[in-house]
């Protein structure tokens, strides 16, 4: 490479790094990570993408960069393990393969691999543990009852196969804690302490739980009912941050621990209405009430646009839940007269009516940056704002 080219690349990267320091946003992280990949620094790009995802766990672009960076490293391993699955399948091989799929963020493939393993080796606990972990992770991310129910079934199966599986007991306890089934949570934490009596964080938590329980005794309830109620209200019964855990939080959990500053987001969404190409913008709360809007006054009224956004988002969210693809992130409808984008963020709904010269991918990037600027940690609070 010529010196001139090297210098240009170095200048480019240092410009992107200082932009990131000045104004950290998903697009700033994404630009730097993509430029690093094109410069051949894949490991550094992965580090930037992971740092960005810690700050902005919703960013699709950063997730793609992370996937790209990891895929190169893991493709060889996947090929080898797939080969092993065909020639000499063992639960260990299946577990390793599912683990790599999880690392790549391919939950579906990980679940499918675990299912295949469970069919071949029904008395092995590992596939059920994987299913339980993934479903619990999804429950933390989307607050969908079905995930909680499937997680519970899988983890209970693990404890039936091996009553000494600490991880399964701890995950079950966490699941019960989130849904408000405190007695069941305590029961599984007691099992954890029977197997590992020196687990100090569990001991401390049990002590706290004992005090809380003395003030508020509760009866055992049907788990499915509890999970459905949590889905309805969209908030966990108890804070995730208080629970002692073996695992480090997945990106989705980081997401569930952040909340949106609604007041400043209202201003941003109204401001977005003045962007070239945007005809209407609207921000709705959980009940469909308009929090902020901006319209050019040439098309739909604010009430009409609000109603349209509410029904489109309802239909799309229902479809994604029924298909077991999680909660709705966004939906775009392209019509000959322009496009509609509806995005869901922590119980809020954002609607945009736009046309040329604004493109959907650009608008989505602007929206993600706007939302990311208005996120803040919700320490010690119940998750989803």
């Amino acid at each position, binding site marked *: 490479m010529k010196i001139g080219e090297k210098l240009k690349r170095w200048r480019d990267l240092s410009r992107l790094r200082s932009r990131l320091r000045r104004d950290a946003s998903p697009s700033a992280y994404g630009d730097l990570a993509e430029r690093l990949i094109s410069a051949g620094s894949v490991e550094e790009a992965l580090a930037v993408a992971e740092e960005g995802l810690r700050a902005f766990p919703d960013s*699709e672009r950063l*997730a*793609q960069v992370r*996937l790209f960076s990891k895929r190169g490293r893991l493709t060889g391993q996947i090929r080898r393990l797939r080969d092993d699955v065909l020639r000499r399948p063992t639960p260990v091989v299946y577990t390793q393969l599912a683990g790599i799929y999880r690392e*790549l*963020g*391919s*939950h*579906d*493939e990980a679940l*499918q691999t675990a299912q295949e393993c469970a069919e071949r080796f029904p008395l092995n606990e590992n596939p059920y543990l994987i299913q339980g972990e993934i479903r619990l992770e*999804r429950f933390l*991310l*989307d607050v969908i009852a079905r995930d909680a129910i499937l997680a519970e079934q899988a983890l209970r199966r693990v404890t039936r196969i091996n009553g000494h599986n600490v991880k399964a007991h701890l995950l079950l306890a966490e699941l019960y804690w989130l849904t408000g089934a405190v007695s069941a949570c305590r029961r599984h934490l007691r099992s954890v302490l029977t197997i590992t009596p020196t687990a100090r964080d569990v001991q401390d938590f049990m002590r706290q739980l004992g005090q809380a329980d003395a003030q508020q005794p509760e009866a055992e309830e049907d788990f499915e009912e509890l999970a459905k109620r949590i889905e309805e209200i969209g908030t966990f019964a108890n804070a995730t941050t208080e629970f002692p855990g073996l695992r480090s939080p997945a990106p*989705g959990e980081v997401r569930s621990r952040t909340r949106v500053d609604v007041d400043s987001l209202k201003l941003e969404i109204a401001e977005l209405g003045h962007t070239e190409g945007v005809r209407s913008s609207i921000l709705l709360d959980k009940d469909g009430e308009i929090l902020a809007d901006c319209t050019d006054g040439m098309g*739909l009224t604010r009430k*009409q646009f609000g*109603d*349209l956004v509410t*029904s*489109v988002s309802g*239909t*799309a969210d*229902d*479809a*994604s839940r*029924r*298909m*077991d*693809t*999680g*909660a*709705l*992130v*966004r*939906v*775009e*409808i*392209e*019509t*000959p*007269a322009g496009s509609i984008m509806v995005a869901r963020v922590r119980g809020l709904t954002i609607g945009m009516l736009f046309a040329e010269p604004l493109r*959907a*991918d650009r608008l989505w990037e602007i929206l993600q940056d706007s939302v990311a600027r208005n996120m803040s940690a919700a320490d010690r609070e119940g998750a989803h704002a």
Partner: protein
Amino acid sequence: MRSILRRLNDVVGVKGSLVLTRDGIVVASHISKSLSEDLVAAMASNVVLSTRRNLEKYGMRAYARITLVASHGKMVFTDTGPAFLVVVMDRNVELGPVGIEIESAAMRIRQVGEIRV
């Protein structure tokens, strides 16, 4: 029609696709084992019909494409003239490149012409 869908399903990350009429009746489908064909058909039919109804209510014309992104998957519904092409994808799929494949499949379906159910 099935061969078009089969080819589309060979694209990495595509889990299934189907063609349904504007009234929500399935014409052809090619769905992977991990998905239930009936469920996909019911969901697709509901999305296509509800969205059309919603847009008509507010005086908006028909739509060319709906892209639905959820936390663990993506779905694209494309107008192909007499019918809709519905594609279900993994969440890691990049919509740009796959979008080209979907558009070319939709074009081939348009060329098939009349659809009899």
